[in-house]
């Protein structure tokens, strides 16, 4: 099906970087923004983060309590479904392992929920064993609101829409169901290395 585009040469990444680019992605140096609506601004005094089960909240932290949890520094490549990738981004956040530690459940999936009614679904195993965080700092600075601050989910091995901005909690589920973008045609799982951008990819 592929057709040569007459006269197209393109701008290639350096070979060393190209190996780190999933198919169909290109490198950027800045940090583009993608969101469906206005940027929410929740005051830190009102901010909470909760782990919810099917019968209600299992655990909840205020901003102060949340920030008192042991945090980790993260260096990761991120890949947006709109095709940009950014290498070696640095974050600080709380591991999901830490947030779920000691909570009894039989969940298989998680729905991350955010201010502005944004949600994103992720299989639980994709959040465990040091693969995902709730990040509150980017590049050594508090996370800006337009990039999801005060805190966003960070799941760098999936397309970046899964790293829900303005995240306020995780709902534990015993099944998978589509979140916000997943209901509007985007892939239910979103592995950039298998180029799972849209339904059916």
């Amino acid at each position: 099906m592929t057709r040569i585009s007459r006269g197209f040469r393109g701008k290639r990444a350096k070979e060393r970087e190209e190996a780190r680019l999933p198919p169909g992605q290109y490198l950027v140096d800045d940090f583009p923004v993608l969101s469906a609506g206005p940027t929410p601004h929740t005051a830190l005094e009102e901010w909470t983060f909760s782990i919810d089960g099917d019968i209600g909240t299992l655990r909840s932290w205020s901003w102060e309590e949340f920030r008192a949890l042991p945090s980790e520094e993260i260096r990761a490549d991120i890949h947006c479904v709109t095709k940009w990738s950014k290498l070696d981004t640095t974050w600080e956040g709380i591991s999901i392992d830490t947030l779920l530690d000691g909570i009894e459940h039989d969940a298989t999936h998680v729905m991350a929920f955010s201010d502005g009614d944004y949600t994103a679904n992720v299989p639980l195993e994709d959040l465990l064993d040091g693969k995902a965080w709730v990040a509150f700092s980017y590049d050594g600075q508090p996370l800006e609101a337009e990039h999801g601050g005060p805190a966003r989910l960070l799941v760098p091995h999936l397309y970046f829409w899964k790293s829900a901005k303005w995240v306020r909690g995780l709902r534990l589920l015993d099944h998978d169901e589509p979140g916000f973008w997943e209901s509007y045609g985007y892939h239910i799982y979103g592995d950039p290395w298998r180029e799972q951008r849209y339904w059916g990819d």
Partner: protein
Amino acid sequence: MARAAVLGRLIWTLGEVVELIDETARVRSILLDVPDWPGHRAGQHVDVRLTAEDGYQAQRSFSIASPPEDRRLVLTVERLADGEVSPYLVGELRAGDMLELRGPIGGYFVWESSRQEPLLLVAGGSGIVPLMSMLRHRAASTTASGARLVYSSRSWEDIIYREELEQLSAAAGGPQVIHTLTRTQPPAWTGYARRVDGAILAETAWPPSADPVAFVCGPTPFVESVASALVLLGYPVPRVKTERFGPTGG
């Protein structure tokens, strides 16, 4: 049968470039004949994929400018100085070339003419493109609700679709079009001459009491500031739909 089997799945297909229209010095519309086009809704976009002779490929997303009613698919593309795909589409592509694309993509930033609420469109630069699909869709249907477009361009010459917007707004029931020119203005210009701000929106946007729905599209700082200003004016957050064009979008 093959079509039915892939319903809901986006497959790469080929469109033939049938015409190119220079909208401004940096913006071009590409009229495509896409035999397999499944149809789209106003506000959606497509992915375009270019392939070099050695197999290297690059993909980007572009908004659809044509309404669902049109036989031809139209993409309107702005040439970005550092872009990889947009300079090719605006500068190199010719009539008769085949362009590989898939879509339509996106189901949130869409408007149907069956919607009854007053429509507010706020565009910055080439952010007009998906909103133009909505205005063309509106013009092709019978709708009783009003529409307003607040459109920010750098200069008179940079206004994309200028003449068509004049025609649309002059037609009975047509949208009210409010321009602001942020860098240079023609002599005797009496319109707005600054970035869209809360004061401009307070004067031009439907009041929240009219229960309007707003679509905002443009560069990220534009969208951030317009969307925040609309919320401050009293627009409920779910009534403000946004689409941002990153500086590296193409």
